[in-house]
């Protein structure tokens, strides 16, 4: 680095690493086969030092992989220490307890060698549409029913793809082309990251990545601690009940601010469910710490340093720290509710900065029928914010996008007859909760089809805050009148139409204080009745 001051050069190197992982994520999105990866962005990408410490993670992607992928890399390096790997080796697993929480998520790890020495590790995760078993859904009783489970193993050996593994994958999934294509796509994005990293050494001769990594981690940790230091010390509790599969589930959190950081303890939360909505610990950690990061230190990039100051605990055997062989396929329907619980605690620590509860878990029905499967994403409303209305039909905490109605109709015989804002569904308040949506889906030729549901807030709507009203609860029914359950697989009979009402977000503040102008505009646009 010559005589150039590190206070100038190291931040520039940090930015380079952040740009490299964004590029890695972009390659993954552009080459992916699974719709939820390429259209919706259900993925993550990051670079690690040789000790397995995460140095940078792409912001593109979804919070469920925040630091669950980071922990996964540690498991990989335990199973295959770097000295046992050679250039061209690529490792893979989809074990829910070694990676990101359900079998659909495949994590791929690629060591990067320079002059024969491993200098860094790239990792990426994406959601592969089908992994066999019962298919993506909440109905399984054990993980064994949920599909193919790969321990940590080689995907490529010295540049050659492991054909035995590929054959096993192809033989076990409903859509072998997508699964195989996505595994290639994960390897390709790590390769792109590795090439960009190697170019960095040419631009910064004498680069010591471990030294830069130490700077990134220390700087991030210090920045987090400085912000935590400005918070009051103490413990705060918040609890929320959600629908669950067959019985309501209590989610309880105690948030403690200490000198060393923030501790989130989910003691008191419900026991594991008998169905596939259980959450492995890494996924609980991911969404719980995401919520903290939205309010505390939101400008500090994710890495081993910034993540180290947040500790998450949940009792073993609870729904938030479910152990094998619990079924976990639809773990997002519980995991994505956790930020509302954590935000409920934070609202007591930092009043006037935290949104009200929202729809939170994405509504991603899987539609299946003769020769087709599609998995669109329909969101509800977010909770009203401290200085503005909640967002209509927007994913939070998930980072995914929705998919196009036209594209869904091109790839299936379904017709989405209606998809528009659900009037009056936002909780009232000084700031209104975001609106949900109404979706009506039928078969073009009047055929039968099935729907696998992983929805929440059908019985437990998003609650308002500080006098704001609750958002409207969600609803699932047939147009002919029959109500359906929020979770599990059911049939839409020939000629009938499935109707989904996604939940609205909670309101914030006294509705009487809503400015007349905002009320008039709500009425003119039909956002609220009357």
């Amino acid at each position, binding site marked *: 680095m010559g005589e150039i001051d590190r206070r100038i050069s190291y931040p520039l190197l940090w930015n380079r690493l952040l*740009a490299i992982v964004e590029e890695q994520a972009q390659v993954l999105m552009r080459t992916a086969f699974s719709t939820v990866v390429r259209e919706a962005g259900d993925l993550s990408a990051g670079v690690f030092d040789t000790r397995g410490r995460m140095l940078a993670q792409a*912001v593109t992607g979804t919070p469920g992989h925040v630091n669950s992928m980071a922990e996964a890399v540690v498991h990989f390096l335990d199973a295959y220490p770097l000295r046992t790997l050679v250039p061209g080796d690529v490792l893979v697993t989809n074990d829910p307890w070694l990676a990101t929480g359900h079998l659909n998520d495949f994590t791929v790890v690629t060591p990067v060698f320079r002059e024969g020495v491993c200098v860094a590790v790239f990792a990426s995760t994406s959601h592969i549409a089908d992994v066999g078993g019962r298919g993506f859904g909440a109905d399984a009783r054990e993980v064994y029913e949920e599909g193919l489970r790969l321990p940590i193993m080689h995907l490529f050996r010295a540049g050659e793809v492991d054909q035995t593994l590929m054959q096993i994958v192809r033989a076990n999934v409903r859509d072998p082309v997508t699964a195989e294509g996505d595994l290639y796509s994960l390897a*390709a994005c790590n390769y792109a990251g590795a090439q960009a990293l190697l170019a960095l050494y040419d631009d910064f001769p004498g680069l010591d990545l471990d030294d830069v990594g130490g700077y990134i981690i220390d700087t991030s940790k210090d920045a987090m601690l400085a912000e935590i230091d400005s918070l009051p010390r103490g413990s705060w509790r918040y609890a929320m009940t959600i629908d669950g599969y067959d019985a309501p589930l209590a989610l309880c959190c105690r948030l403690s601010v200490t000198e060393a950081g923030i501790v989130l303890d989910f003691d008191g939360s419900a026991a594991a469910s008998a169905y596939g909505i259980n959450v492995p610990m890494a996924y609980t950690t991911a969404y719980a710490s995401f919520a903290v990061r939205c309010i505390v230190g*939101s*400008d500090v990039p994710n890495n081993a340093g910034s993540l180290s100051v947040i500790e998450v605990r949940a009792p073993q055997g609870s729904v938030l720290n479910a152990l094998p062989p619990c079924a976990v396929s639809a773990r997002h329907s519980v995991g994505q509710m956790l930020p509302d619980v954590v935000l409920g605690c934070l609202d007591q620590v930092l009043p006037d900065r935290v949104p009200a509860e929202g729809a939170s878990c994405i509504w991603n029905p899987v539609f299946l029928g003769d020769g087709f499967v599609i998995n669109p994403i329909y969101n509800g409303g977010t909770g009203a914010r401290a200085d503005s209305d909640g967002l*209509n039909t927007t994913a939070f905490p998930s980072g995914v996008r929705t998919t196009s109605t036209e594209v869904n109709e091109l790839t299936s015989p379904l017709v989405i007859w209606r998809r*528009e804002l659900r009037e009056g569904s936002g909780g009232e308040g000084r700031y209104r909760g975001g609106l949900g949506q109404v979706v009506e889906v039928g078969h073009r030729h009047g055929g039968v089809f099935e729907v696998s549901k992983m929805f929440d807030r059908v019985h437990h709507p998003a609650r308002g805050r500080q006098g704001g009203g609750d958002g409207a609860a969600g609803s699932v029914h047939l147009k002919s009148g029959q109500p359906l359950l929020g979770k599990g697989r059911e049939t839409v009979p020939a000629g009938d139409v499935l109707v989904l009402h996604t939940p609205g977000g909670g309101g914030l503040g006294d509705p009487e204080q809503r400015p007349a102008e905002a009320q008039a505009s709500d009425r003119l646009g039909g956002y609220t009745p009357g």
Partner: protein
Amino acid sequence: MSTRLAVDIGGTFTDVVLDVGGVLHTTKVLTTYDDPARGVMQGVAQVMDAAGVQPLEVRLMLHGTTLATNALIERRGAHTAFLTTSGHRDVLEMALENRFEQYDVNVRRPEPLVPRHLRIPIRERLAANGDVLVPLDESDVLEAARQLEAAQVESVAVGFLHAYADPVHEDRVAELLTARLPGVAVTTSSAVCPEVREYERFSTAVANAYVKPLMSRYLDSLQAQLTSIGMCAPILLMSSGGGLTTLEAAKAFPIRLVESGPAGGAQLAAAHARREAWDHVLSFDMGGTTAKICLIDHGMPQLSRSFEIDRVYRFKKGSGLPVRIPVVEMVEIGAGGGSLAQVDRLDRIAVGPESAGSEPGPACYGLGGERPAVTDADLLLGKLRAEVFAGGTMTLDAERAESAVRRAVAQPLGLSTDDAAWGVSETVDENMALAARAHASEWGRSLDNRTMIAFGGAAPLHAANLAGKLRMSRVVVPPHAGVGSAVGFLLAPISFEVVRSEHVDLRSLHDNDVAVLLEHMRREARAVVADAAGDAALVECVRAYMRYVGQGFEVAVDVPASGEGLAGALRDAFEAVYRKLYGQVIPGQPVEVLSWTLSLATAASTPAEAMSTPTGGGGEPGRTRIYDGRQRREAPVYQRALLVPGIRYSGPALVEEVQTTTVVPVGWEFHADLRGQLILEVHS
């Protein structure tokens, strides 16, 4: 020799260039927002006086403008309504249902251009293959027409689901509305953007409708004013795709005029690349607020079909309104001479995207700016001379620059003012380098050994340092760099691009079907360009947007010349592109085409030799002292106009001209060539 006029209306200045048989007369006047044609007429009068040319002598006028872009950003467009498929009223508002800033719970989304009460549902429905599921209910349309009349709507967009597959319902609605509401502009989504994905298509149609009345009024007024002084030359408009189009096409699809200035700049760089036979060029345009970088291979700017306007989070992908139009693909970065520097919470120097603009401007302008901008850092580093800024029309205040940098950067970090200024300059250059690398990688291009063509007021100050970061060894500053976009208009081809969503699996592709489709597209394109192009030969470019069956993103593939076995040729072409982008192909996986584009264009020009400024005369250089992060070195300052062509000098040095200064770092040498280009090369 013909006399042509080029006018570029920018955010701050309107640039006017008069080309009299290859000799250029240029001027800059302030843009007149209340009536942009007034500024144009003022500038036109100035250059015609200077050149002693009469209006009648002008044979052609080329014009680009940011008016459409500004109307969209400032929401000053028409009172617009949107008629759409019943049950899908909120596509524009629901958008992609995402947050483009993951950790910001207070994130804002861009407001739709049409409010909900003016989004009117119409009963009708097509299936994905174009079959009619619900016939168009004309009584709904007539009722909507009454509502629009009552609401005094000026412009209407019509967007129905799957209209890209068959425009029958949209066309009928347009017919009914035109009959009922004369004077109201109508735009259909299938005409503006016949592509699958309803949000992007509707967004494009509505944006077009939103600017249509305003652009028509402006273009009519301009034409009338030009006619009134006796200038009857035809007017061609610069489009975002880098080609020129007729007044009529511009009035029908004004959305295609956004970003015409930057597209002109790209054409300038492309023209130099062609003349000098530089196969791989990066054009670098840096002004007061933003920098734009564009890749130009084999004399052609990189093109694409998507663009975002009005990004709520400046420069953040996904935070704006998408439009699907032909555009010169470039990356825009919040990095300009006015970009402000600060130290962030993590003790890192951060520069931009916030800009001091022209008011108050950088601290050194002495107009009340207190925060340090890139120009302040450049001044402190010795890259600008205070007394001769802007040709001596303005004196910069080094003391103000120094105190701003000291307060905002040096003191918080414990650095010397020199190091702090260097850190600011280095950070802005790194930001641009990061963006350039990401852009090249996104398009599967390499940056190594490109020639950089730099223009715009701030680019020559930063070009060589940026080039070094990107491993480029040659930088060219063309003549008239300060009005580069308008000069680029003079060099652009006349062109029009047609797009069709026509899904074809290569396994079932029939050569004849494709030939018929392309012939229809060819006729449509020819109808637009024929008048303006006259006898000029037309170059055809056909692209297929292809992917593996099952993927969701397409790559653009040049369609091989027709003949037998198109499917096989397309697959080979696709796999070549795919391998270049992503390293490896997927064996055995079927391939499909989602959409096709066909463009017809006249051959683009190359700058005439005489378009250059005469050089020569030598002269005694001035002196400056440049700080390079390690030490301050003595450096000569040359006047560009006085450089003797062909004589090589070594850096460090500055080369000054009226609108900019070129910095030549240590390790680089430079010379002016006979065509007036200033050429910097890494010392071999």
